């Protein structure tokens, strides 16, 4: 748990953080967001004393941070930053080992931990451990940055735009991966960002800041449905309804759908086509490989010939996708339904546009009630 009590920071006469009081619960992800210069990064850096507060107190796990030596304090708090700051002269493994080394772990334990962490962030230890930072792509470097922050398994993690310096596609993947990791690790995370979508996606609570002050501190749902004032209202924008979709998973909306194996006979296919014009086609191993149009089937000689083939990554969404992703894919491809697959591309069912409409309408009425 992290507690700030009237934390204040002046730079000369200008005030960066103005008497900030807030609490971050154990195991929660708190996202600090606001326009640039609002004091969010200063707030973050005050927690591990990279910036000393002018006045006020900050507690990490009940301990007043001003009573702990800065080096000591920082060793117990993971730290990841936008520009990553990997040490260019050290290998990936050595970079991750920095904090374990500071804590004087023995070599075997450190090596084990490096392997574990690389696997956790989805990089093959055999391939990556001995690479140097200049051999990594931007996305890989940021993943190593996160792995390094997690190295000594600190209960608290400070992240300053950890997914900032990569292209949007990579950023989305990193966010999804981080959300997944956080689900199991349950760290207390304070993350600074200027990307509202990222905040909505990752946060248990969002702290909106403006000119050094906390404007609203609540769950994303509440912030989107009940912005406290005009500033927050303008900040979250007019597409609030759409943004809320990214807080909703699709899992509860998945329903069964007709599908057929590519090796099935024409007779079976025609039987299904009588009930539905579109059928998802799977391979022998039950992986999604494409779809079939009833109209084409009539002129074809086999199921395989009538199938329109497509990569599962292109035509389907995974079960842990958000409603926003699913909707955007449907709109993009002009479909009224989209297949859902698990992480091995096995077909689980489908999601329809009308179901999405129903659930958003329900959420809307609940808010207005």
């Amino acid at each position, binding site marked *: 748990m992290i507690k700030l009590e009237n934390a204040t920071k002046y730079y000369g006469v200008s005030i960066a953080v103005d008497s900030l009081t807030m609490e971050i619960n154990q195991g929660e992800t708190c996202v600090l967001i606001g326009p640039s210069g609002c004091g969010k990064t200063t707030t973050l850096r005050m927690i*591990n004393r*990279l910036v000393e507060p002018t006045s006020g107190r900050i507690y990490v796990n009940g301990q007043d941070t001003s009573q702990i030596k*800065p*080096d*000591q*304090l*920082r*060793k*117990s708090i993971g*730290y990841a*930053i*936008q*520009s*990553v*700051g*990997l*040490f*260019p*002269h*050290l*290998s990936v493994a050595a970079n991750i080992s*920095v*904090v374990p080394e*500071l804590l004087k772990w023995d070599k075997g334990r450190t090596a084990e931990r490096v392997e574990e962490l690389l696997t956790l962030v989805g990089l093959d230890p055999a391939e990556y451990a*001995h*690479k*140097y*930072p*200049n*051999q990594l792509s931007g996305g890989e470097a940021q993943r190593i940055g996160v792995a*390094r922050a997690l190295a000594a398994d600190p209960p608290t993690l*400070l992240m300053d735009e950890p997914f900032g310096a990569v292209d949007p596609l990579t950023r989305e993947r990193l966010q999804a991966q981080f959300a997944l990791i956080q689900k199991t690790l349950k760290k207390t995370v304070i993350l600074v960002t200027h990307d509202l979508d990222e905040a909505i996606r990752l946060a248990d609570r969002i702290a909106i800041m403006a000119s050094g002050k906390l404007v609203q501190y609540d769950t994303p749902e509440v912030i989107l449905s009940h912005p406290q004032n005009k500033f927050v209202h303008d900040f979250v924008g007019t597409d609030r309804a759409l943004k809320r979709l990214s807080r909703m998973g699709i899992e509860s909306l998945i329903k069964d759908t007709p599908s057929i194996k590519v090796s099935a006979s024409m007779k079976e296919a025609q039987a299904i086509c009588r009930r539905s014009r579109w059928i998802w086609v799977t391979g022998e191993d039950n992986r999604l490989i494409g779809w079939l149009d009833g109209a084409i089937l009539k002129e074809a000689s086999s199921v395989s010939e009538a199938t329109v083939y497509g990569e599962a990554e292109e035509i389907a969404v995974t079960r842990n996708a958000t409603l926003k992703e699913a909707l955007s894919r449907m709109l993009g491809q002009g479909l009224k339904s989209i297949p859902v697959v698990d992480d091995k591309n096995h077909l689980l069912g489908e999601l329809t546009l009308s179901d999405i409409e129903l659930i958003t309408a329900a959420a809307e009425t609940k808010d207005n009630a």
Partner: protein
Amino acid sequence: MLRQTPNHDSVAVTGSVIGLFSCLFGWFTFKPNRLVAGTSFSLWESAGWGIAAVIIMLWLLCLALSLTGSGKKRAILLGILANLLLVVTFILAGLETGRLMAGEVSFARVSLGAGVWITLAGVYIVIFGIRQRLFGSRIWLNLISWTGMVVFVVLLATGWLNNVSIMQEFMGREERFIQELLRHIYLFGGSVAVATILGIPLGILAVRSKRAEKPVFFIANITQTIPSLALFGLLIAPLSALSFAFPVLREFGIRGVGATPAILALIIYSLLPIIRNTFVSLRQLDPAVIDAGFGMGMSPGRVFRKIEMPLAAPLVLEGIRTASVQAVGNTAVAALIGAGGLGWFIFQGLGQAATDLIVLGALPIIGLALIVDAVMRTAVRLATPKGLTGGDS
């Protein structure tokens, strides 16, 4: 190889043409004594038409090879030819000077003419040109770059070149030469060592403190604008005043002339490259890297030792290299204020209009500069962390 190579090597072509021109000049000059002008002999006049033809043929072959392609095989062949020319020239120098000196009195001198020097220039231009084509194979690169030097040293040691006038000058002053060579090394080496010990902390100070940055660079820069001779001279007055005021200082060698002002001036000259490179090496570090170090709980000392030092080392060493090479040259001037060193031969030679004596001082200074440069480049290479060399682990 995917890269399209040009179909000729213009540097090697230039070297070959220069080499061919050497045949137009005199190769050896006979003087009854070392002060008169003497008679010049061309290549064919001294070595005969046969040898001259062989040398011209070798150069034409070089020219043809460098005009018709720029592959690696050609480079190796060119390198072998260039070294062959070098060895032939050295052997000829020994043979012909010996022949011309036979039966002459000890005042007589045979010096190497423009033709020989131009040949050496041509050979090394060719070698320089083909070096970059051989970066792939270190063995050939080193073999072609250094064989000539090794043969030269061996011939020198065996006395083959003893009849060359420069060697005659050397043999008359062997002890003095070694003494001045060691003194030269002591003067520049000591100065650069002191400048390093002073310069690195000053560079760090300039990075860390905004207040110190301006004065440190103001002084370091201004000293560079004073010509070396003037700086040597300028130090004479205050130092002699000092030693007059406190005669006890003279016992420690502090006088207006001699080693003290020379070393002081050389230290002042060496400071700027070292301070500047230390400053830049630390300033150019990615602030995010330092921030990450502190953010993970490293102490300031550890950040300096584990992050800043290894990342800054190559550039700092590069500064020491610049300072060293520069100091080797500047030390030559130090002879003027009585500090000694190889410059002594140069100024003696200038005073007596004895070219050979000048060359006796100048050649080892060039050699020393090249050796210091090579040693420091190796040090820079060894100090460069693996992750900064652009690639393969």
